[in-house]
């Protein structure tokens, strides 16, 4: 333990520098170029959709695959209005800002994942020699800080939320478009602080910054990292404020509270937490900084302070922050499942209100992170009881999603696979939370890999899976092009199995007593660690795959109609990609958000199959191009044309 151990990680710097260079600059340029309209004919994706029907007439997938479009001149949309870098960096269009966020978040996701990869490699042997001990501590700290504050918290609200919220409620933009851009710059500034901290030596406090370790005992870049988190916190607060005002003030005519899509409800709940919780984190970080710089003594027992006070303040934010991460994921899943089951969301009101319940109760359970910290036994019991109660709304949601499938007309497309995977992984993650809410069991497995597995099931198995599902679902809306379906389905399965193999063994590791944040571990834990690392390598392939084909399809994917899924949301009633101000006329809403009918869907499917079978000479692509072109022509951005599949 030497305090000037910065030079021990030259290759970490290299990785950081390479990632910064590759993703930050090249990706931005390439993707900007990729988003420009391609004039050449769209090449066929590698799948069977283009075969003559006589070859495979009976398969529903072939019939209902979105059509191969004939190359048409794109009407003006938010992407092709201007191509200059300036037009992107100074945009106030919520859709473009969402894309800007997406760049940053993807970048940070891969930085955080690189740290995770090194951690998993290190843990393949009990006395791993891949990195030095302090480097290992820096790696898991960096993994936590980057993933929590620069990926998980902003990912869904700031990309898909930013993109979809105004469209879902029939608005032209967020309430404060310039504030929205300012939030992005704050986020970038915070990210740069943190990256700078990592590149100039890193930090090894753990993402939780527990005092007095962080204030008196480490000599790494604590202040710089905390500054990054501090600055990005303001980005969160401003985004939350923007969303709340938008949802209250900018709903179009007829869009009552109980006609809001569940995704909007969850964004509302998330924004409440962002606005109410983040200031507490900000204050806590300021206190920690003052303590570290000037020794003010708030957390220092030698001066009458209390190190546990830091934990109380920190978890008062950081526990609700868990719900910031997972609530929008629940919202995404609530959009995908009704669409691909062709059925109304079961008990819509309960699902919407359960999200609000989670947001409110989520503020009352922070103490369950401190069962072994020395807080009073009765406090422990209170927090345990409240933690059980906060699980109930989550259970309600899971039951409702499952019930939505009953009597549906289920299409296992890639977004649906992600959504179903979400239910499974989230259920396991949530149920393992009940173990941790149980006091004696928590005493046994607290601070072990059981906890790691638990929150990765929620964060990665839940939130990241939902994020990818949402990305696939709205990809045609965002880019106007379709991703390769078969590849996407394969990736969804790969991610599901890779994830399970990575984190299921960790439950057992934790149960057996392997501590988290351990550089060395007892040799008897090796087998399970190797299994976990093997799973992680599958997971890495699983994540790289959508990253590559989504980028590819942004330029080369097939053009699709405005509403390739036949979904009911307002965002599907406008063009794909949408024009800068979303709708050519302000929509009027006359019904609830999920007006699907499984029987109609089945009838349509039968009719389409019948047409195809009677007229075997028509390639299904052409037939569908025709049909969807019709739909596109008649689809006015009003809800009278909501169920496009009826045309």
């Amino acid at each position, binding site marked *: 333990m030497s305090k000037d151990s910065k030079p021990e990680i030259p290759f970490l710097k290299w990785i950081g520098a390479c990632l910064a260079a590759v993703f930050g600059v090249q990706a931005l340029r390439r993707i900007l170029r990729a988003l420009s309209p391609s004039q050449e004919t769209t090449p066929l994706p590698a799948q069977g959709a283009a075969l003559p029907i006589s070859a495979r007439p009976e398969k529903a997938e072939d019939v209902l695959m979105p059509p191969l479009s004939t190359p048409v001149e794109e009407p003006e949309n938010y992407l092709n209005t201007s191509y200059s870098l300036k037009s992107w960096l100074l945009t106030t269009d919520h859709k473009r800002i969402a894309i800007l966020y997406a760049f940053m978040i993807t970048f940070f996701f891969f930085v955080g994942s690189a740290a995770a990869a090194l951690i998993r490699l290190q843990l393949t042997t009990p006395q791993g020699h891949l990195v030095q001990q302090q480097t290992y501590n820096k790696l898991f700290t960096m993994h936590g800080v980057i993933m929590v504050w620069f990926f998980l918290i902003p990912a869904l609200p700031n990309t898909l939320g930013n993109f979809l919220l105004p469209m879902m409620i029939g608005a032209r933009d967020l309430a404060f478009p310039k504030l929205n851009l300012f939030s992005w710059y704050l986020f970038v500034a915070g990210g740069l602080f943190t990256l700078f901290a990592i590149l100039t030596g890193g930090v090894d406090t753990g993402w939780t910054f527990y005092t007095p370790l962080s204030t008196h005992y480490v000599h790494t870049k604590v202040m710089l990292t905390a500054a990054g988190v501090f600055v990005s916190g303001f980005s969160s607060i401003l985004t939350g404020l923007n969303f709340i005002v938008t949802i209250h003030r900018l709903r179009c005519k007829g869009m009552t509270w109980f006609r809001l899509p569940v995704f909007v409800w969850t964004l509302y709940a998330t924004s409440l937490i962002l606005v109410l919780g983040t200031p507490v984190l900000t204050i806590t970080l300021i206190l920690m900084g003052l303590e570290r710089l000037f020794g003010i003594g708030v957390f220092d027992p*030698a001066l009458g302070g209390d190190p546990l006070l830091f934990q109380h303040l920190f978890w008062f934010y950081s526990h609700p922050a868990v719900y910031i991460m997972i609530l929008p994921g629940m919202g995404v899943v609530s959009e995908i499942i009704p669409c691909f089951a062709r059925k109304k969301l079961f008990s819509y009101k309960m699902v919407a209100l359960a999200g609000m319940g989670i947001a409110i109760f989520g503020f009352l359970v922070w103490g369950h992170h401190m069962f072994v910290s020395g807080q009073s036994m009765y406090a422990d*019991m209170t927090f345990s009881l409240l933690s059980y109660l906060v699980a109930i709304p989550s*259970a309600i949601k899971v039951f409702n999603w499952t019930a939505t499938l009953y009597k549906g007309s289920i299409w296992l497309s890639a977004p649906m696979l992600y959504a179903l995977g979400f239910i499974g992984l989230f259920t396991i993650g949530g149920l393992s939370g009940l173990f941790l809410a149980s006091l004696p069991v928590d005493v046994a497995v607290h*601070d072990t890999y059981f906890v790691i597995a638990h929150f990765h099931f929620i964060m990665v198995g839940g939130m990241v899976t939902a994020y990818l599902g949402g990305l696939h679902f709205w990809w045609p809306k965002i880019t106007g092009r379709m991703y390769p379906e078969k590849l996407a389905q394969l990736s969804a399965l790969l991610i599901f199995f890779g994830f399970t193999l990575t984190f299921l063994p960790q439950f057992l590791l934790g149960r057996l*007593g392997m501590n988290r944040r351990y550089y060395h571990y007892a040799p008897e834990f090796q087998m399970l660690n190797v299994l976990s690392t093997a799973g992680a390598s599958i997971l890495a392939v699983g994540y790289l795959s959508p990253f590559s084909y989504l980028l590819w399809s942004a330029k080369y994917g097939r053009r699709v109609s405005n509403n390739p899924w036949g979904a009911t949301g307002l965002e599907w009633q406008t063009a794909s990609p949408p024009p800068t101000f979303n709708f050519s006329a302000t929509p009027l809403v006359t019904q609830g958000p999920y007006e699907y009918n499984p*029987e109609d869907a089945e009838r349509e499917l039968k009719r389409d199959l019948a047409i195809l079978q009677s007229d075997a000479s028509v390639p299904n692509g052409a037939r569908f191009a025709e049909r969807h072109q019709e739909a596109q022509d008649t689809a006015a951005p009003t809800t009278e044309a909501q169920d496009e599949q009826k045309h």
Partner: protein
Amino acid sequence: MKSGWKAVVSLGTASLALFAAAQVRAQESGFRWQPEQASKIAPRVDLLFDFLLVVSGLIAGGICLLIVIFVFKYRRGNPADRSNPPTKNWKLESAWIAIPILLSLFTFVWSARLFYDEYAEPAGSININVVGQQWFWEMQHPEGPREMDELHIPVGKPIKLTLSSQDVIHDFYVPAFRVKQDALPGRLTTIWFTATQPGRYHLFCAQYCGTQHSNMGGWVYVMEPGDFEHWLTHTKPQPSLAEAGEKLFVQFSCAGCHGSHAAVRAPSLDGIYGKTVPLADGSMVRVDDRYLYDSIVLPGAQVVAGYQNIMPTYKNSLTQAQLMELVAYLRSLGGQTAHEKSLDTGDATTRQSIREQQQRALETQQEDQEMQPRQTPSDAMPSGDKNLRPLPQERKSLP
């Protein structure tokens, strides 16, 4: 729905059978599903854990099964009855809200009861002081012996650990005992357990405490009572906790104010342990380890009624271990603890003889020390300067 129920029931039976088979198989093959059970509380915790595992398995399995059934039966193009798809059903919904709540409450009550038992310390426990420091544990037995990253305890006796930390937050964790407790700087925390199986068990620090966090730990040796007595008598003899505290009491001139003939007026410390005393602000406080500890570290915080606070803090002049020795001495002055009672009476005659043996050994040792003064922990590890902290391998040689 009937077939659904049947499926759930059969799935439940199957998972229970699998679970039982896995437990048996695990015992045969040496593969573990849980750590060794080496304390009285461990089987009770494991029962609760297994209950949660079965309930969770049934819920997760049931949901997965339903999803698979629905996806298969209602897949697009598959003829099935889709008439009047339900979008709400208050009976079903009330059931799936009420049942989880009842299950949760049941689990909570079970957990809270067990947790209470984990807290409620029995009479007659052996009180061992444990101080965490970057990156090792220092244990002090009441009879005097000190250990580094190792803890020897007798089987079948309730052991109470009083934990504190010299620097950052540490966490004392023995998976085989299912116990875990943070050791905090500037505060005393306690846990207790009764070991049931002689053997050697992992001791970890569970709370991340800096660079060499994963090196911090060692072994707990659970010994048969006879072996333990043997171990106690054959370790390097040292003054008992109370004796060490008494020495400090003299060394730091505490008696100069708190003694009965002191010139300066300060509250007497004789026989106050366990009593409730009035404070200057009108409140009452029970004199226990924590109060005594706090009063040495922060004398101005809780001043006894009728006295001025003129005492300086001893936070920086004493190590955590020394503070805890002082507390042990003050405890011995009055209001005996359960353990010390047991030392004095009946079954502890062997202990008495151990003490005598140690006392003799101590005297001979003290004669030796006149030539070469013994290094105290405070000499070796000045608490003020963190940069001078020696490395753990050097520390192993400390007393």
